[in-house]
């Protein structure tokens, strides 16, 4: 859209230069990880920027990672925690956003404000209290603890984005539904949620990456063998004196795959929602 409007070629070029620079900066570390994951240990240190060639190509890192018994468990934990958290962030976030945008009740502004504060204050500031609560609930070393914390972490932003979007859904649609005798729950599930799909996809993309990448809460709340996530699991290859770079880079490379798949899925939803829009 911006490009279509910018008529002068100079603007187009300038925009492209900025975007390409940013893309390059953002992708460079990923590129380094990918390239070095397929090299022998010696080659990684000798020429970290070189592409793998016949001499330096090696899959030793992947072999090590995949031969570890707990590899599937790590991925399973990460995926479970991310997907379940996402599901509830979206469900509760959408419900609360809908309530805040549609219904007038006492304390509405206060509740909205409370949620907005959640965006500004990082949840990690409350780590000590969270740990105390988790201990009190007897949830230490469970994935439930992680999921609960991630839901709390994701909700404020989800509500902010969804509330904005839902308040733009035409009032007449809801009224037409009320004339059709559709219950408030049905209005939410069969009209509002489908219409908010682009916003939901946005929320999903925004929420899932910090959860998948998080090292902090898995380390504090669920460091046990059976509840470790990928990011935590990778730490076993990083030693105080020697680090198994092959394994670290290989597992990082593998860790990108599920999140990439999720991302592709959600961005498809995003685009489908945008083109099928016609909320008129």
């Amino acid at each position: 859209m911006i490009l279509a409007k910018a008529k002068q070629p100079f603007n187009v070029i300038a925009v492209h230069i900025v975007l390409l620079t940013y893309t390059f900066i953002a992708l460079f570390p990923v590129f380094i990880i990918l390239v070095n994951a397929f090299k022998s240990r010696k080659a990684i240190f000798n020429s970290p920027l070189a592409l793998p060639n016949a001499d330096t190509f090696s899959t030793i890192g992947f072999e090590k990672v995949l031969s570890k018994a707990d590899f599937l468990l790590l991925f399973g934990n990460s995926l479970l925690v991310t997907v379940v958290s996402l599901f509830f962030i979206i469900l509760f976030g959408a419900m609360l956003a809908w309530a805040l945008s549609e219904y007038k009740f006492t304390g509405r502004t206060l509740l909205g404000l409370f949620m907005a504060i959640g965006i500004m204050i990082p949840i990690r500031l409350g780590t000590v209290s969270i740990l105390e609560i988790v201990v009190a609930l007897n949830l230490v070393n469970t994935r439930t603890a992680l999921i609960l914390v991630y839901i709390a972490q994701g909700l404020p932003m989800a509500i902010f984005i969804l509330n904005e979007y839902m308040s733009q859904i035409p009032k007449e649609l809801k009224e037409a539904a009320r004339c059709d005798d559709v219950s408030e729950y049905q209005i939410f599930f069969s009209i509002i949620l489908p219409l908010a799909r682009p916003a939901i996809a946005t929320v999903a993309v925004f929420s899932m990456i910090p959860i998948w990448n998080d090292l902090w809460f898995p380390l504090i709340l669920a460091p046990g063998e059976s509840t470790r996530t990928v990011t935590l699991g990778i730490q076993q290859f990083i030693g105080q004196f020697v680090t198994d770079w092959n394994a670290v880079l290989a597992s990082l490379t593998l860790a990108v795959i599920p999140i990439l798949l999720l991302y592709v899925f959600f961005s498809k939803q995003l685009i489908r929602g945008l083109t099928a829009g016609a909320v008129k």
Partner: protein
Amino acid sequence: MASLSLRKINKRFGKVHVLHDLDLEIQDGEFVVFVGPSGCGKSTLLRLIAGLETISDGEMRIGDHIVNDLSPRERGIAMVFQSYALYPHMSVYKNMAFGLKIDGQNKQQIDQKIRDVASKLQLDSLLDRKPGQLSGGQRQRVAIGRAIVRDPKVFLFDEPLSNLDAALRLKMRIEIARLQKVLNTTTIYVTHDQVEAMTLADKIVVMNGGHIEQVGAPMELYNAPQNKFVAGFIGSPAMNFLVAGVSTDNNTNVITLANGQTLPTQQHLKHGTQLTLGIRPEHLSLYGAETDLAIEGQIESVERMGDITYIYFSMPGHDLITMAQQGDHQLPIGQIIRAYAKPEKIHLFDESGKAIKLS
């Protein structure tokens, strides 16, 4: 029975008093049009009737039941919105089926009804499309179809044609009129367009500033407006208003125009009363008799339509006077023109705007 009765209906939004003590009776099967300028409270009244807003004060009945506290569905209404309000993610078929499914009707029954209504509205070939793939007129028909399948006791339309272009508006207007005659369902239709009101209504309710100005059949409102507002609102182009007063001539009261002309009146009007005299553009003529009212002015603009000519001329102290003449008339701008009106076509309003009988 789906007659409708409003008693002393009031609506307040917080401190804003939008509707004032409205009384209205609507008969079963009647086509009623609420008309009035933008912001006068037509939509609000319609939404009160629908049950989408709560009534602040007063009583509303549909048939014999007081419906103040009933939901839209319990009232048995179906509404067609200005923006159509079709569910964008559902096909035309699903849009119509949605409410029926919620009702718990069985699939075959629903299918039967939808096919039936779709053929009535020429929607057969569009049933699988999404609203985004339809033209404005088609969306409008789907919205109407969705209301019809509900088989409601009362249809409510809120400015359903205002998003359509002129040609389509005319076509849909005729279609709505035809449908209503076939279905014979009580219908309330909101518009700010007096032409729609005149052509569709059995009964017009003219509203202004949250009050009902007059209720009556279209020709009643045209021929005998009860006040200056209705007179100016109904009829197109709008009625001309002339400043007039009352003076005494040979011991009898006469109405005096600014140009010194006088009209006899049998009314007992006080000397010095300020009056407004109203003449519709179509009742002004280039030719007239001795006894006719005659006014003079300078032509400012002429619009020639072929079948009809609109002549606008200025008179000191007045807005432009409009005159509608059948046929084509070629008149030079700037020329002084004389227009005649038959005394029986003249409307008279007192200072408060209330209509007075001339004879």
